[in-house]
């Protein structure tokens, strides 16, 4: 098949293979037969690779390597997985596959996106997944690049987001280039991230790579999701394709694994507790993996008329629903069910950093005797070193299972378990929840009215002026870095899964800007409008991602929450100074030395403009904000990213 024709053929092939069964690249006659038969468990390689296996080097297109590059076969494998983009920062250790992707692969599926930092590339994939539900792959130098990427990989791990990280590495000490490439080589690059990836491998042959890549995708995409790592030898990328022990190369077919659902007995026990409770409360963190998860949680909550606390790592529950409740709702509960909670202990306990001798103080948030239920797939992948499993909490009914996959059975079990005599009380509970929700709504808005005309601008005003500018559009808050006192989730009518994507997971600063670009990329392809409340400190970790957004025409409205400081850290220093009866040294700024980003003030609008964005600012008066936002929205709708630099109150 001519190369050009084959590319067209591959495009159709990959498009058809997005999620479930893959149609292998069979000849026409074979396709007709295949329609009536079970799909094969393995795919033959593309025609290009097949030719390399069956023809002598002299019959192939002349080149210096004497055959088809191994990395061309790797591209064949990657294309079967339907990965749309590959955000990456270029590096010599993956030059083989880089060249194959953009030339042999036509720079499509995946399209290479030029990134200026590996942490940005990984975080883009993080944000992209939260909108699209599909993972991206990234390439990096196996040592220095992976070290840059590692913080973002940790965020993805903590946030249960799949990601395929491929690190180039030149293993053969006898043949690899000396000097810099040898500084950039290691025995086992994957060791760096093994503690916070689900799986890793170092393929030593092309057939091994095919198995590893498909396995990596499958593991990453089996709940609980998570990042995976493949070390890719530079020699393997560059060597010509050979048969594997006399067998032809093949590509294993990707078949999704069903998520683990809760044990039937435990589901019944949980349903009984919930159905018979006086005041059950549901707390959800990463429960809604998909938009369907949100719908299921509404069904469960309404069946019980139970209030739901959405901790907000995803949109688990509509904020406008009368059963949506603040975190304090747990205090009156007799049964609490946690769904994919990152930290159950902290839901039912509190810790105050103000105890005797500088040691924090614990206290309970709930009534004694409250029964606790947990459904959490993270229990299946707990590792030892990094402490993201949090404090130990005793649970009465605990299911190591995926909550979204368990909810259909739980809903049915709850409906069956509700005693007829309880129905009236459950209805009354719903009426009380309606009143509590209405009261909370009014209280929240009155709190937002405080400092409404302040300069610098209040964070509540910032959020509502932004909402007013986009409210008629199909909007999506792609990121909120820094801390705006949760006004977005308290004031915006967040009702759909894509309205709010949650946070970084590992609280590694620097997630916001790149994740917003990745999510905006997915939204661009869906025709949605992306909004990012962008913190100043977060942006300065790797501002080069602004250029990536402009370069690849990824529009978003970034509204700076520019409070000119690392406010999370201010109070840590102040607290210790107070405990030690020492006046904190502000060094001429408005906070302890080392916590402020002022003198000089950073001109974020100029920074953005220099990298191809439309930008305005600094805006310090609330009265000037609306017009700048209106103008910015029009620019974003034309396809250009826009940034409005707003000076804000601290939080």
């Amino acid at each position, binding site marked *: 098949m001519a190369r050009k024709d084959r590319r067209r053929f591959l495009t159709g092939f990959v498009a058809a293979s997005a999620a479930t069964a893959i149609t292998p690249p069979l000849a026409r006659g074979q396709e007709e037969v295949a329609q009536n038969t079970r799909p094969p468990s393995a795919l033959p390689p593309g025609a290009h690779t097949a030719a390399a296996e069956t023809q002598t080097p002299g019959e192939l297109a002349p080149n210096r390597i004497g055959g088809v590059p191994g990395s061309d076969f790797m591209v064949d494998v990657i294309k079967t997985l339907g990965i749309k983009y590959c955000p990456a920062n270029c590096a010599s250790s993956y030059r083989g596959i880089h060249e194959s992707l953009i030339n042999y692969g036509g720079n499509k599926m995946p399209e290479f996106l030029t990134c200026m930092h590996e942490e940005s590339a990984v975080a883009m994939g993080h944000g992209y997944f939260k909108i699209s539900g599909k993972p991206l792959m990234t390439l990096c130098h196996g040592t220095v690049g992976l070290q840059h990427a590692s913080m973002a990989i940790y965020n993805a791990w903590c946030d249960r987001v799949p990601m395929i990280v491929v690190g180039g590495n030149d293993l053969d000490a006898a043949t690899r280039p000396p000097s810099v490439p040898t500084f950039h080589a290691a025995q086992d690059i994957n060791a760096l991230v093994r503690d916070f990836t689900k799986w890793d491998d170092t393929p030593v042959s092309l057939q091994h790579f095919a198995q590893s890549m498909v396995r990596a995708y499958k593991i990453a995409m089996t709940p609980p999701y998570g990042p995976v790592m493949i070390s890719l030898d530079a020699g393997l990328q560059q060597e010509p394709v050979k048969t594997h022990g006399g067998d032809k190369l093949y590509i294993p077919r990707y078949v999704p694994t069903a998520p683990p659902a809760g044990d039937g007995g435990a589901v019944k026990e949980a349903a009984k507790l919930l159905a018979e409770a006086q005041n059950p409360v549901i707390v959800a963190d990463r429960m809604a993996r998909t938009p369907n998860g949100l719908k299921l949680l509404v069904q469960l909550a309404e069946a019980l008329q139970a209030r739901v606390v959405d901790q907000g790592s995803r949109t688990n529950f509509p904020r406008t629903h009368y059963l949506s409740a603040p975190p304090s709702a747990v205090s009156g509960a007799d049964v609490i069910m946690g769904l994919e909670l990152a930290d159950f202990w902290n839901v039912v306990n509190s810790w105050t950093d103000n105890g005797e001798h500088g040691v924090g103080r614990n206290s309970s948030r709930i009534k004694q005797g409250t029964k606790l239920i947990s459904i959490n797939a993270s229990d299946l992948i707990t590792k030892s070193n990094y402490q993201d499993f949090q404090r130990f909490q005793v649970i009465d009914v605990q299911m190591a299972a995926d909550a979204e996959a368990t909810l259909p059975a739980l809903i049915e079990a709850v409906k069956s378990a509700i005693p007829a005599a309880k129905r009236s009380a459950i209805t009354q509970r719903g009426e009380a929840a309606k009143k509590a929700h209405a009261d909370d709504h*009014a209280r929240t808005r009155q709190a937002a*009215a405080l400092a409404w005309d302040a300069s610098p601008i209040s964070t509540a005003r910032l959020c509502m002026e932004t909402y007013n500018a986009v409210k008629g559009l199909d909007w999506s808050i792609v990121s909120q870095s820094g801390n705006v006192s949760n006004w977005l989730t308290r004031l915006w009518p967040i009702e759909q899964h894509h309205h709010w994507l949650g946070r970084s997971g590992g609280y590694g600063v620097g997630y916001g800007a790149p994740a917003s670009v990745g999510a905006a990329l997915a939204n661009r392809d869906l025709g949605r409008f992306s909004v990012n409340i962008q913190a100043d400190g977060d942006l300065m970790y790797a501002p080069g991602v602004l250029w990536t957004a402009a370069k690849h025409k990824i529009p978003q409205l970034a509204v700076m929450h520019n409070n000119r400081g690392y406010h999370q850290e201010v109070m840590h220093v102040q607290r210790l100074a107070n405990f030690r009866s020492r006046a904190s040294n502000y060094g001429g700024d408005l906070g302890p030395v080392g916590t402020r980003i002022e003198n000089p003030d950073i001109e974020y609008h100029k920074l953005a403009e220099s990298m191809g964005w439309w930008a305005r600012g600094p805006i310090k008066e609330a009265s000037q904000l609306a017009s700048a936002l209106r103008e910015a929205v029009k620019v974003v709708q034309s396809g250009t990213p826009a940034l409005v630099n707003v000076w804000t109150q601290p*939080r």
Partner: protein
Amino acid sequence: MRLRLIAFTLIGLVAAPALAADAAKGKSAFMKNGCWQCHGELGQGGAAGKTLAPKPMPFEAFNVFVRNSNGQMPPYPKEILSDADLADIHAYLQSIPAAKDYKSIPLLSQ
């Protein structure tokens, strides 16, 4: 609990703020001592700190809390925040006008 008891016992012992308490100086002290970082420049509060204004708590209770807090806010001893500065800060908080009714703000009443 012990701290709280001490705190409330002390309320009766602490003098009311000096009549000379100055709101303008109080704003300066509010900024200089980092109060604004958690409570906002107008004492509006937020995720990190409670609302202080308008209508701050009476000075006596305010003073006891600031000196003896066992909550999220660390106590501020006299060595780093003088009585005079604290009185001025309270005067500043008292000077902050009430917020509008949210129903009169179009962006909040929609």
